[in-house]
């Protein structure tokens, strides 16, 4: 077994939850890496959809933006952005959404809008993009993001996208019928919402990670399941595919020699 980084462990663990028959709405960055790793390993026929309108795309390198040419060139079809959000996302045709976040709370609600007050933010983040409706329209949501006290917070500065709201059946009370976040994969562990309270609970640790480390990287008193699984480390095959993907990607995004 090769050495691997926490980020590689996170990407591999996230990729593993995807299945060949999934239709998955993919965010840029870590979600995109995980989804394409799944496609290039155990789920070759997975349908990946990017909000730029590209349906069933099979990029050879990871896109830097949500709409790199590679996505369109390798897609089954490319639709307009209004059609993507209306017919495909809101139409209920997509069963998995993969999101990241700047801040996440214990009920997997997401902030990607501001740090500090909305009217006078300390840090103006990019904003919501597709996330608010991805979070409510996809059949279920997987979240993948690096874990730290700054990002796993007790209280969001702004609720950009709904997770489980205030917990329990709050999500249904908001008129939302989809499952919402069923899994959070970080560089340290795996969390799942408690079946009743919907509070995120650590159910698995990545190899070599202790519960104390995870708790120290979380801004609230994090709950742990009585029995914790240990995430199987990345296999040689998984690492080889992921690293080759990143290698191709880095080469593709370098400035051209001619320029």
């Amino acid at each position, binding site marked *: 077994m090769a050495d691997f980084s926490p980020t590689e462990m996170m990407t591999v663990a996230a990729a593993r939850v995807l299945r060949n028959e999934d239709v998955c709405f993919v965010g*840029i960055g870590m979600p995109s890496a995980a989804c394409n790793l799944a496609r290039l390993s155990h789920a070759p026929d997975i349908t990946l959809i990017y909000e730029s309108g590209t349906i069933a795309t099979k990029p050879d390198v990871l896109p830097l933006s949500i709409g*790199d040419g590679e996505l369109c060139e390798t897609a089954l079809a490319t639709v307009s952005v209004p059609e993507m*959000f209306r017919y495909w996302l809101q139409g209920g045709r997509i069963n998995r959404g993969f999101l990241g976040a700047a801040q996440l709370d214990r009920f997997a609600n997401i902030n990607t809008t501001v740090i500090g007050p909305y009217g006078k933010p300390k840090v103006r983040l990019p904003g*919501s993009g597709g996330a608010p*409706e991805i979070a409510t329209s996809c059949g279920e949501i997987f979240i993948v993001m690096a874990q730290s006290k700054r990002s796993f917070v007790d209280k969001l500065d702004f609720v950009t996208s709904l997770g489980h709201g205030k917990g329990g059946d709050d999500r249904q009370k908001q*008129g939302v019928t989809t499952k919402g976040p069923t899994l959070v994969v970080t560089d340290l562990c795996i969390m799942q919402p408690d079946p009743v309270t919907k509070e995120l609970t650590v159910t698995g640790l990545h190899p070599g990670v202790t519960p104390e480390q995870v708790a120290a990287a979380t801004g609230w008193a994090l709950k742990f399941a009585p029995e914790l699984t240990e995430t199987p480390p990345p296999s040689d095959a998984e690492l080889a595919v992921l690293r080759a993907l990143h290698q191709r990607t880095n080469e593709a995004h370098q400035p051209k020699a001619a*320029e």
Partner: protein
Amino acid sequence: MAVFSSLAEAVAANIRDGDTVAFEGFTHLIPFAAVHETIRQKRRDLHLVRMTPDLIYDQLIGMGCVRKLTFSWGGNPGVGSLHRFRDAVENDWPRPLEVDEHSHAALANAYEAGAAGLPCAILRGYRGTQHGSVNPNIKSVTCPFTGEVLAAVPSIRADCAVIHAQKADRKGNVFLEGIVGVQKEAVLGAKRAIVTVEEVVDDLGDVSPNACILPSWTVSAVVEVPGGAHPSYAHGYYKRDNAYYKAWEDIGREREVFLKWMEEHVMRQGPDAFKRHAMKAA
């Protein structure tokens, strides 16, 4: 009916101080050349609309052209922040920026409703989020058949829409393909429209009967600006210059560096500067 003109004439004739302007292009076909001309002409008090502000709005905001921004995701895709946008929101530099913030779904629907001539769009959106508490442009309507409460946002009907496309024929009919984003909707919802194109051709050629085409009579001005979408890209012509996007992180971060760069690369240039990026795929 579309008029063929220079880029300077097209911007002068169709974009006025105080206008609501949508420069569109979802990652693909972003009208950089037209934005640079707008900056050179020193337009002021613009209300800009765009789903993904991208570097072009960072440039317009940093150069003091913008009063208000309607948007749904303001970042440098895959790289990081739009520092000029952040500086305006966080520090009011070079002037305060009014923000009308939405989700992608809401803005995509708002463009769609604008093209459809409706006053508002309805969507199953914003549920369980805080957006409605900070933006009076997010309201609701109730379905008269089911009682379901849906989000409503005003439609987007810009004074001027600006897009880049692959080609136009000599009558001014415009063709685009690939990631077509919300460009058709932006143009059809707007009072006026400027389209820059990679090339003007005798005939659009053997395109699909269902191709994305904007007839000449929906466009105010067509301008041939080869390479005019660089560092964005034009499907079938040239690729996205991802290195430029990565470099922007350092160019845009500091005010002085930004202003110096703009002076050199925008203010002292013209549309011809884009030519060297133009390239047609074999």
